[in-house]
């Protein structure tokens, strides 16, 4: 039996909104048609707060909070857009672009990339920091999919889609800081991974062109991240 959920009222950008206890700020905002930019969040997957783009201001405190992992409280007043937030979000996106080799012109996801569309929505045409230009490999060992480390933003959507949804837990992040990489099993090639079920959920969850289907040319990889979310909802339905 489900207990009746407690209703809370919060303010988002001054507008009074009623939300259910246990929701995060991002969920409450989404349910009421408020937009908060995010890259690592995908409905249905456990939030991790990796991309720091969903940061919001909460009145009464000077700190910025990630909307995806902060639960709502009664009477909370949230600001989702301000010059300060725009400044911090811009830095986050610029650093993501600088960290790996994001060359849109030759990317399979050009035009369908969440990082790209976010950057253009924020008006980021140039970055102020020096490019890192790491020498990274491309894993072509899988018969159907490709992993390109150059385009990875370490949002861990693939890690969570595989662990939470598929239950195979093929992906994980290895090392720390700037040396972090997505890795399958014991640093094996993807194609040699014994736990991979070839389901392709990680590919659909990936916001950039880091994971793509083989045989796609530039601009041809269209992802259906909403399939992941609807799959989660359909599993929750009890008949």
């Amino acid at each position, binding site marked *: 039996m489900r207990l009746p959920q407690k209703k809370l009222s919060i303010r988002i950008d001054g507008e009074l909104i009623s939300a259910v206890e246990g929701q995060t700020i991002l969920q409450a905002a989404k349910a009421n048609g408020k937009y908060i930019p995010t890259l690592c969040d995908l409905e249905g997957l456990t939030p991790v707060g990796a991309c720091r783009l969903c940061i919001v201001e909460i009145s009464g405190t000077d700190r910025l909070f990630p909307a995806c992992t902060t639960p709502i409280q009664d009477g909370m007043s949230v600001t989702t857009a301000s010059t300060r937030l725009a400044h911090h979000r811009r830095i986050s996106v610029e650093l993501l672009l600088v960290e790996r080799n994001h060359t849109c012109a030759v990317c399979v996801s050009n035009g369908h990339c969440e990082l790209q569309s976010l950057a253009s929505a924020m008006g980021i045409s140039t970055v102020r920091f020096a490019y890192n230009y790491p020498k990274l490999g491309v894993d072509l060992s899988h018969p159907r999919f490709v992993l390109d480390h150059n385009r990875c933003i370490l949002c861990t959507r693939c890690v969570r889609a595989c662990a939470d949804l598929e239950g*195979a*837990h093929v992906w994980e992040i290895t090392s720390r800081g700037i040396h972090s990489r997505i890795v399958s099993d014991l640093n094996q090639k993807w194609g040699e991974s014994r736990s991979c079920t070839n389901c392709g959920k990680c590919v659909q969850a990936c916001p950039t062109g880091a994971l793509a289907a083989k045989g796609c040319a530039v601009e041809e990889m269209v992802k259906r991240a909403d399939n992941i979310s609807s799959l989660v909802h359909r599993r929750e339905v009890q008949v």
Partner: protein
Amino acid sequence: MHTASLERPNAAERAFIDQVIISRTGHPGALLGILESVQERHPNKYLPLETLEYIAAQTNTPLSRIYSVVTFYALFNLQPQGDNTICICRGTACHTRGSRNLLQSVRLELGLGLEDASETSEADKTLLTTPDHKFTVRTVACFGQCAMAPVVEVNHRICGHVNERTLQREIRTVERESY
């Protein structure tokens, strides 16, 4: 990358691993303790991939999770370690007191060269083992002994105010002791 060290855990090792797993399961963060105990028992103080596979199978942990933990923490080694460990501090205080020169002189002394070609020796982290497995040279961000900078740890013994001569002497001493 994936190095095939064909070192399958033998029956005694498997029994030890099973025992460690039994004594630790149920506690939060059990995996760290298991890995630490297993590494400590290995004569070369490292975790061969086959051992990781065995631990994964016995504890029902995904392989990728184990690999992630082992590469996140600097204390775990995936490569065989030398009999003696020389750990040079590369923190700010030690750096200003010339720890880079110490590192370079140790590398030259042990014939490890100065080129950072391998992927294990990234700009901020060095981990090198001599081919005869007598010495491992590694760096650490800070020992918290900045007053004694530059600090070098030889076989888990902290030496402060080290210069190239005293370090050379330390290496000779441990070399003699290990025979």
